[in-house]
């Protein structure tokens, strides 16, 4: 029975130590110490030491994480801009080729149109006028 109680106490004591975040108190001058200050128990001392020693690693970890995150964001931005750029190039090429095709086809189609030759039309007009005048003269003269 005693053994069981001892074991239970021992377990409780261990768990209490594991959960212990540390204790501290203030000391005055010559109050069991050569100078006034703060007294930390072993757990608190261990925490203070460990926090100080791991703070830089923690900071580096967070810094690396944030930098990598930013890098990934910039990579996405760059990729989006590249995609946009390539799309614009493709669009430009397509437009140019299409317009060239259209211009060629229109030129071919319009080649069949009557040519714009003002001198010819003036000549046709003059000849037509003479012919009509002559025709009218002949008609009325009869």
């Amino acid at each position, binding site marked *: 029975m005693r053994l069981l109680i001892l074991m239970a106490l021992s377990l409780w004591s261990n768990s209490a130590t594991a959960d212990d975040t540390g204790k501290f108190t203030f000391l005055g001058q010559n109050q069991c110490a*050569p100078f006034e200050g703060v007294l930390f128990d072993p757990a608190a001392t261990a925490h203070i030491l460990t*926090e100080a020693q791991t703070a830089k690693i923690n900071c580096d970890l967070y810094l690396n994480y944030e930098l990598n995150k930013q890098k990934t964001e910039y990579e996405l931005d760059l990729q989006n801009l590249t995609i946009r750029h390539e799309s614009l190039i493709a669009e430009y090429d397509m437009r140019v080729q299409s317009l060239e095709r259209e211009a060629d086809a229109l030129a071919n189609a319009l080649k069949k*149109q009557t040519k714009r030759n003002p001198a010819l039309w003036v000549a046709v007009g003059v000849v037509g006028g003479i012919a009509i005048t002559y025709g009218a003269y002949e008609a009325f003269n009869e």
Partner: protein
Amino acid sequence: MKWASVLQFALKNWREILVVLSLSLVSIKMRMDYNALHKAYEISKQETRERIDALQYIHSEELARREHALDTYKKALRELRESYEQSKEELEREKEKRIRTYERLFSQDKEALSNEIIDTYGFEPVE
């Protein structure tokens, strides 16, 4: 006999025949011009339609690529987050280990603990 009468009719009405022929010529030429213009219009319409199709294709391609890039970005972020969480957990474990070590040193090796305090903070030990 028949050809002679036709020739006679043509000679007699050559002016009217000339006017009719001229009008017919002008009409045919106008019709040809109209057909050419109509063909040009059809070509222009077809090219515009093809351009619209090509633009839609390019746009859909761009959207798909952007979507893929966004998926890659999300995956990379997730991996980064997981890696960061894992590193933090490892650090926490390392901290716990150190805390236990220092607690043990407090009772077993005070000089080593003292050296740790001096190395970490540069404090001066006092007896």
